[in-house]
């Protein structure tokens, strides 16, 4: 999140799109309810289904799953046409004034530079125009046809309300009410927040969905201000922390790119040259990278051996290491061993039938979990014959969150410590204990080996106490980082060096554990200015900033746009920024000084990017999901042109003649993720005990299905038997002149637990977003039929 949960109380309008916040992030509604009661805030919910969030919203706008960009594109046009954008903000804090290469263009769904064979863009034509001294060319009047603002106007001129409503199926009057209500937050003294989750990201256009929200929020001048921002409500308690710690193939801790076996990353020097931008805070990347390598290989990492840079594995170019690519490799038998640390792909993975089948090729599987999950017992899943499955499976019982210590980071980047309340149940162990002892066993097997590849393991800097119990405090200290010479904890990432004298496991967490102690353990509830930032409670990265880009909360002269929306402001007397949050800006850089307006300190441009290159273009463009019930009426390009399509077995594509309805997966308040942590708890199992498909009364009537009866829901990948939950809350939508029904499927059921049920992900496809490869769970095609 750019802001955080409590800051929601400062908003004047919350647009909840691609999220079911009241069900999946219920505490967000504590603060939205306060915003509504104290500020008269309006709540808008845009969702294919009328959910418990819609029940509390002032406006509910139905939309066909997979058409967010059309919806938001329409709002962008509405803002531009009615001049509701926050002009001073847009001119000073965004790249709307930047001039773009005149060769840039867009025609019939494609930007310039597209190569149909490789399905990739050559982005040269999208570059900014630069002056001789390398600075960016800008037209502060935003009239130049090549300036981003005019390009934006041209691009979204096609997103008129009628076209948009034809694509999304949203009733026009409702759409206009949403536009009028949310776009009013463009006023300088108003802020609106966008709250989104997997409903936004789990599409082949997931990244551009988020980009469209960021773009809209920049136009309305909401980003970086209390009650504003683009707020991802993430699903798991520490998915923010686990992402920061880079349990993802494409990054190293602190969002440093993981090396690829190409010239650009051949050596540390090559890597740093190609990865470090010319301007913006990322210019300090070498300090972060070297400190990370020193944290990994400690004393063994020296200047001479590039701080053991070579020890880091380099990816093979062109290979997809993401979840979908990974399971395609498992299916092909390339992968022999797999670790599952509390993950359950047999229920949570896309095309789950294929992923479960793929696991049969594994020689060995280590499953670490609190429960005997469907993935841990894939070899005895319904329909499998254990005798044919040769995988050796090790199930290691893990301790629960309150049976161990440690810190986790919530969506709002608050890193909070958790204390140990109880001994682990039975012989279960904390994951830290398991990793620590597993490493020591593996290291012992490689002790004394002279083979260089084994040195990678034995040289690892593993100084967490010598007994069986790892000292978690030492791990926390290492993450923060310390000075090898003084042995002191570093106070902030600005103290990191690239000469090997400092280490830090994750530079964005540097400052969490300074010399005076682990700040994540702080429980002081003072809240200066009553803005809800609670700067003394725990610690938030980066540098305890609670609202990032908060320089934008002040106008170009450094004074808050609105009194009740103050975050930081310039104090001329003190010569520094002061206020209710840690400045996300040079503390002593005056607003009138050069770069005093560069509110986005991480960006090379120093400003927020309305125009920002992604795999499929610099501006979000609507494309249809891989399995669409209709055609793209904005261009002849149906599927996102930059998406990787897997023409592989068990991943067939369904068409709308055989599968006429739009299927979409979701969760409910009472179950969480694949259900292990909720379907094994009696009090939650009893609240939603059965797997069901949610269908509208009109669809049920059409198919002669009665509420509570069993039905089969099928897609090109598989079929499942579930109960029919027939409801008034889902109605057919009018899409391009045709009635389109949608079918809702909770995805938290599996064959193991107190309550069990069919797995919705047996229906979802193996295809993902062009940039992140996150699977398209939210829009695929299904059919339904009654069970006699």
């Amino acid at each position, binding site marked *: 999140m750019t802001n955080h949960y409590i800051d929601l109380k400062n908003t004047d309008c919350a647009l909840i799109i691609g999220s079911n916040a009241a069900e999946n992030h219920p505490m967000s509604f504590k603060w939205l*309810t306060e915003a509504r009661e104290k500020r008269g805030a309006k709540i808008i919910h845009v969702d294919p289904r009328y959910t*418990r969030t819609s*029940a509390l919203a002032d406006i509910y706008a139905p939309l066909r799953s997979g058409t967010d960009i059309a919806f938001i594109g329409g709002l962008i046009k509405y803002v531009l046409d009615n001049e509701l954008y926050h002009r001073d903000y847009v001119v000073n804090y965004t790249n709307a004034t930047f001039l773009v290469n005149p060769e840039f263009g867009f025609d019939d769904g494609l930007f310039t530079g597209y190569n149909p064979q490789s399905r990739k863009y050559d982005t040269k034509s999208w570059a900014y125009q630069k002056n001789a001294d390398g600075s960016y060319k800008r037209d502060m009047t935003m009239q130049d046809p090549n300036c981003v603002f005019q390009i934006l106007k041209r691009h979204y001129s096609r997103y008129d309300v009628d076209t948009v409503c034809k694509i999304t199926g949203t009733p026009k009057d409702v759409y206009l009410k949403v536009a009028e209500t949310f776009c009013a937050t463009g006023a300088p003294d108003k802020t609106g927040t966008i709250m989104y989750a997997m409903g936004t990201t789990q599409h082949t256009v997931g990244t551009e969905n988020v980009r469209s929200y960021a773009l809209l929020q920049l136009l309305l001048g909401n980003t970086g201000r209390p009650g504003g921002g683009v707020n991802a409500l993430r699903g798991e308690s520490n998915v923010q922390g686990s992402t920061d710690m880079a349990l993802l193939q494409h990054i190293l801790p602190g969002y440093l790119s993981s090396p690829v076996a190409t010239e650009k990353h051949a050596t540390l020097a090559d890597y740093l040259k190609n990865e470090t931008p010319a301007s913006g805070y990322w210019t300090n990347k070498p300090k972060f990278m070297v400190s990370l390598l020193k944290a990994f290989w400690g004393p063994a990492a020296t200047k001479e051996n590039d701080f053991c840079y070579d020890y880091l594995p380099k990816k093979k170019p062109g290979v997809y290491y993401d979840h979908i690519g990974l399971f395609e490799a498992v299916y092909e038998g390339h992968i022999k061993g797999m670790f599952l640390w509390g993950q359950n792909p047999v229920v949570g993975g896309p095309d789950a039938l294929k992923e479960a089948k793929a696991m049969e090729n594994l020689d060995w599987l280590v499953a670490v979990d609190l429960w005997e999950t469907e993935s841990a017992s894939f070899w005895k899943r319904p329909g499998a014959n254990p005798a044919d499955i040769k995988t050796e499976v090790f199930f290691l019982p893990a301790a629960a969150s309150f049976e161990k210590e440690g810190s986790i980071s919530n969506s709002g980047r608050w890193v909070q410590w958790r204390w140990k309340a109880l001994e682990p149940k039975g012989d279960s162990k904390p994951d830290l204990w398991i990793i620590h002892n597993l490493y020591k066993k593996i290291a012992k097997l490689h002790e004394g080996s002279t083979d260089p590849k084994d040195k990678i393991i034995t040289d690892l800097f593993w100084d967490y106490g010598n007994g069986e119990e790892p000292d978690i405090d030492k791990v926390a200290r290492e993450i923060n980082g310390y000075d090898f010479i003084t042995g002191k904890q570093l106070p902030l990432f600005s103290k990191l060096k690239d000469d090997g004298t400092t280490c830090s496991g994750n530079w964005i967490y540097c400052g969490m554990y300074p010399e005076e102690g682990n700040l994540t353990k702080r429980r002081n509830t003072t809240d200066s200015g009553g803005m809800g930032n609670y700067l003394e409670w725990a610690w938030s990265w980066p540098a305890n900033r609670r609202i990032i880009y908060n320089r934008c909360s002040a106008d170009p002269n450094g004074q808050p746009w609105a009194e009740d929306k103050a975050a930081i402001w310039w104090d001329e007397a003190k010569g520094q920024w002061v206020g209710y949050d840690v400045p996300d800006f040079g503390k002593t850089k005056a607003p009138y000084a050069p770069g005093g307006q560069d509110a986005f300190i991480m960006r090379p441009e120093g400003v927020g990017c309305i125009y920002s290159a992604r795999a499929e273009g610099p501006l979000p463009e609507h494309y249809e999901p891989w399995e669409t019930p209709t055609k793209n009426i904005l261009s002849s390009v149906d599927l996102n042109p930059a998406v990787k399509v897997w023409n592989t077995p068990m991943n067939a594509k369904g068409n709308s003649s055989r599968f006429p309805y739009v299927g979409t997966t979701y969760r409910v*308040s*009472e179950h969480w993720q694949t259900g292990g942590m909720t379907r094994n708890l009696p009090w939650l199992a009893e609240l939603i*005990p059965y797997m069901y498909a949610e269908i509208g009364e009109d669809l049920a009537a059409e198919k002669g299905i009665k509420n509570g009866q069993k039905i089969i829901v099928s897609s090109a990948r598989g079929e499942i038997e579930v109960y029919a939950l027939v409801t008034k*809350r889902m109605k057919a939508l009018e899409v391009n002149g045709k009635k389109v029904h949608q079918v809702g499927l909770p995805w938290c059921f599996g064959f193991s637990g107190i309550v069990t049920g069919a797995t919705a992900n047996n229906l979802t496809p193996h295809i993902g977003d062009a940039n992140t490869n996150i699977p398209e769970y939210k829009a695929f095609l299904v059919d339904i039929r009654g069970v006699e």
Partner: protein
Amino acid sequence: MAKTLFIDTSKCMACRGCEVACKNWNDLAADIRPFNGSYQTKEGFATQTYTIVKMNEVEEADGIRWIFGKRQCMHCTEAACMMVCPKNAIQRSPEGAIYVDRDLCIGCGYCVQNCPFGVPKVDNNTHKMSKCDMCVSRIENGLTPACSKTCPTGAIQFGEREDMLRAAQVRLAQVRKRFPRATIYGNEEAGGTVLYILTEDPAVYGLPPHGTQVPWQVKFWQYLARPVGNVAVGASVLLLLVATWFNFVQKPPKETGAHVEGGVK
């Protein structure tokens, strides 16, 4: 002075934190029921379910509405259950909670049949009645009930009765902007119960109509039938004592044995 709950159903999102917090505090068991085609997977109260969030879909002129309302014991000022309990097992705590002392309860079910809100339930094996007791052990120690503490949106508030009533009246004006038909429920009913702001007619929440009081049968039973009956039995006993006095203590004068008017023919 008595405390009570104030439930503003316009803030309820049916997250059912209250249902689970209630089971957590009271150590109640789960109670899985067959599929009933709704998110509200349980019909109503049960021996292991003291509170339940009603979830009703209503189609109105201006579109669909999903109406939520948390139900639990109403802790009536005039409590029918207390009036009918033959063993005085149901008491009102100093803070106003109606609770049952399970040692005294014999599971006779009088309260079950006579509660106008259908709250108490009797367990047929333990022969004990169980229902929401407003977390009496908590509120008697200055804490709030588990459901009100856990409610994320503050739909469930707890405090002195006048404060809660004032809060409800203030809130009603705001709620009516979004829900014109909103009403306060629980101010007159049964002498004053848990206070609600309902956004729809009470029936949608499974509540009896506005103005519901203790059933007349209960009043007839407790104020008329039993006292009169007791008096009758008392009178007989009195009569027997008097007769014993006359027949045995103060011997009757010797009689000729004729008892019938006009003597023996």
